[in-house]
């Protein structure tokens, strides 16, 4: 695991490769969705996966979550937290949570049902409430604890889900297009929060995104995926890649990568 993949990457904080994705392939109804995807994700680093529609970005996340049957292997090397090598703690923030917005379900209920087995109708235990509040405060959302989940704005909901995915602290955090459908100030706040968390908790984060403008400044590495890994590198490297520029129509404009 000390091969070429560390080249050109800023030295990561813990000095370990936290997640090692080795030749993952997913086939659905005999159609290959992703093929031979190999990646190394490091602690304290944010890796962003970009690619055209149908490139298999979400499928990659599903494979990592164990929801999509796949060939190849995923190794986790937890350096902290509750995860074990065979049962990794993966945090997940879905694209947009599809739920009944009229449900009488508060943010505190969401934490209580996820963290505790003490029946919510009997109330939320003090310890659970405390850790929910701490998690929400780490994403600047402490005031949302007693709000109704269905009445949150898109940006607020994503921050709540981010806070939930950090409790307990995972080894790997997966974000599936977390800012789609959020207004610009909301996006900036979300990126700033994720960026801080990455350093504070030395998290390895894998994000899928379409938001090219936003990810260039926040990502440590960008993976250009189109069924296979076409290019991997720093934002500067990938944004200069001809295939990448072609796929996103950037070769038509004479723009310098920022």
């Amino acid at each position, binding site marked *: 695991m000390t091969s070429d993949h560390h080249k050109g990457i800023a030295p990561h904080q813990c000095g370990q490769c936290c997640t090692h994705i080795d030749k993952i392939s997913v086939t659905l109804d005999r159609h290959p969705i992703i093929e031979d995807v190999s990646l190394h994700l490091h602690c304290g680093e944010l890796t962003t996966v970009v690619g055209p529609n149908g490139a298999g970005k979400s499928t990659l996340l599903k494979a990592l*979550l164990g*929801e999509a049957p796949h060939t190849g292997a995923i190794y986790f090397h937890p350096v902290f937290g509750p995860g074990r090598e065979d049962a990794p703690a*993966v*945090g*997940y923030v*879905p694209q947009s*949570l*599809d*739920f*009944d917005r*009229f*449900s*009488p*379900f*508060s943010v*505190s*209920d*969401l934490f*209580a*049902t*996820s963290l*505790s*087995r*003490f*029946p*919510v*109708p*009997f*109330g*939320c235990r003090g310890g659970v409430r405390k850790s929910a509040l701490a998690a929400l405060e780490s994403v600047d959302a402490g005031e949302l604890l*007693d709000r*109704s*989940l269905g009445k949150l704005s898109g940006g607020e909901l994503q921050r709540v*889900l981010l806070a939930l*995915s950090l409790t307990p602290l995972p080894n790997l955090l997966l974000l599936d297009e977390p800012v789609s459908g959020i207004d610009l100030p909301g996006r900036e706040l979300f990126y700033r929060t994720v960026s801080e968390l990455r350093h504070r908790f030395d998290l390895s984060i894998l994000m899928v995104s379409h938001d090219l403008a936003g990810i260039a400044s926040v990502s440590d590495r960008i993976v250009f995926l189109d069924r296979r890994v076409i290019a991997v590198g720093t934002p500067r490297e990938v944004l200069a890649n001809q295939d990448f520029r072609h796929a996103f129509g950037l070769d038509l404009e004479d723009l310098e990568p920022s």
Partner: protein
Amino acid sequence: MNTAIDLLAHLPFEWAKYEFMRNALVAVILVSPLFAVMGTLVVNNRMAFFSDAIGHASLTGLGLGVLFGLADPLLALVGFSLLLGLGILALHRFTRSAMDTIISLCMSFSIALGVVLLSRGGNFNRFSRYLIGDLLSITPQEIGWLGLTLLVVGGGLLLFYNRILLIGINESLARSRGLKVWWIQVLFVTSIVMVVTMNLSWVGILIINSLLILPAAAARNLAENTRQYVLFAIAIALVSGVCGLLVSYYADTASGATIVLVAMGFYFLTLALKALRQRFQ
């Protein structure tokens, strides 16, 4: 149990003189909270149509019980409803067809089969007791059994309440939190079948689902969080259960259906309160 029923005889009301009314009242008070709590989960997990199908499927279970000459068709009833419930779940999982289509198919099939089996020989009327239910015929021994179901199913429901609720909010999210979604759904379906079939003979196939859904649906209009949701549902179920029973005594109507009408009244009341609250916000 018997002492509780006997104590009621000291109440200064005309109906309290009759043993069948005392039995019915105890049964209603025992079962309403369980229906309410289960209802909150059924409504939240969008399974109202599913529990309806379970109720109707018992017609077939009944038919099979009669066909095989069982003295008490309850066993055939529970067995068939369980088979159908888990069958719907499995079909949904493996064919990935829409849930409501599968439920509709299974329900049509089981009702048709049930009617065919029960109408053989031409006296379907014998079974109308199961269609509209007969709360007043409940015996202390049956109440004992109800209490036992309450303890077992209610306890299990509370033990798994958080997990079932989270699956109802979003399955993928629940799965990413490490929940074994499939097994929890199997457990939930089994408990729905138990509650519906055990209470069928006194509530009736036609209205049992309303009793499950209405208190929760009414509570949803007012509640802001899960705790309020469940507490309101229990209160509405208890009040409409007791009021419905007493109204049915004085109006000389079927008690199960009267209870449902009172619960329906509560639903519209909460709907109006919700509209009022929104106007003044």
